[in-house]
């Protein structure tokens, strides 16, 4: 239990540290990488808490997700490397207050609640995966199917939103011209 507490604490600190680093760097790519490390540390916490399947799933999913996020950062930002040191935040004092109040409330609930008896031993990894499979295809089948349909719907919706609207005689799909170029063309 002491070793488990040590690893949960270390990975927890890493998750928090990298989570804070996400919003403390001017570089968007560094932000995405910091979030990747934070989520990977959360996955390592799962491993330390003997939830092996969920830990591996978390690390794999978040590695892919955050890599895509880094690519989008490079695509969308004028200064993805953060060389200009541009500040992209607002209402800082309110945000810090809201974050601190939310964290303090959750911490007080964690510390002052009676969580009941603690179970020392967890089932082994093979048993967990087997039982989770039975859960997904048994009692929680409807939840599992709903999650699958939701992801499919989100994929279709995201693609539908992202593709340009085609109207007769209007070309809205080109990105190579900025607004300035369009204004110049209009003035000609």
């Amino acid at each position: 239990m002491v070793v488990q507490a040590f690893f949960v604490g270390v990975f927890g600190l890493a998750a928090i540290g990298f989570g804070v680093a996400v919003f403390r760097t001017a570089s968007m790519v560094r932000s995405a990488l910091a979030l990747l490390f934070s989520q990977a540390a959360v996955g390592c916490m799962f491993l330390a808490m003997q939830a092996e399947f969920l830990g591996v799933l978390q690390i794999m999913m978040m590695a892919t997700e955050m890599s895509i996020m880094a690519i989008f950062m490079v695509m969308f930002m004028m200064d993805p490397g953060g060389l200009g040191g541009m500040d992209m935040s607002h209402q800082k004092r309110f945000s810090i207050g809201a974050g601190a109040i939310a964290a303090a409330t959750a911490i007080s609930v964690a510390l002052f609640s009676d969580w009941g008896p603690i179970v020392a031993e967890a089932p082994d990894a093979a048993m967990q995966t087997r039982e989770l499979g039975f859960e997904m295809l048994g009692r929680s089948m409807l939840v599992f199917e709903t999650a699958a349909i939701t992801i499919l719907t989100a994929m279709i919706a995201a693609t539908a939103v992202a593709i340009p609207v085609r109207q007769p005689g209007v070309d809205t799909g080109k990105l190579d011209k900025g607004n300035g170029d369009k204004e110049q063309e209009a003035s000609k």
Partner: protein
Amino acid sequence: MTPVLILALLTGAILFGVGIYGALSQTNLVMIMMGVELILAGALVNLVAFWRFLHPEVYAGQMFVLVVMTVMAVEMAVGFGVAIARFRAKGSVEMEEAGDLKG
């Protein structure tokens, strides 16, 4: 009361607070999504800790974790779809400039 459960719950609580700060303070849509991801990561830590230390024999706890992971993936997909649409229309994903729906 086990210190491991409390450690995990404290980590989840702080990640939740950091995520709230990020989601409220950032002006860039992708950075706001990063804040939401941290909020959901905090929820995931709590769920796994509750499953492991309180009810490891009930696998609905792990199922709940999979549902939250689904929410994370859906949030990313829809968020990036909106970001692409916004970038196409306005050339920027800065949310301070997005006042189109204001009455």
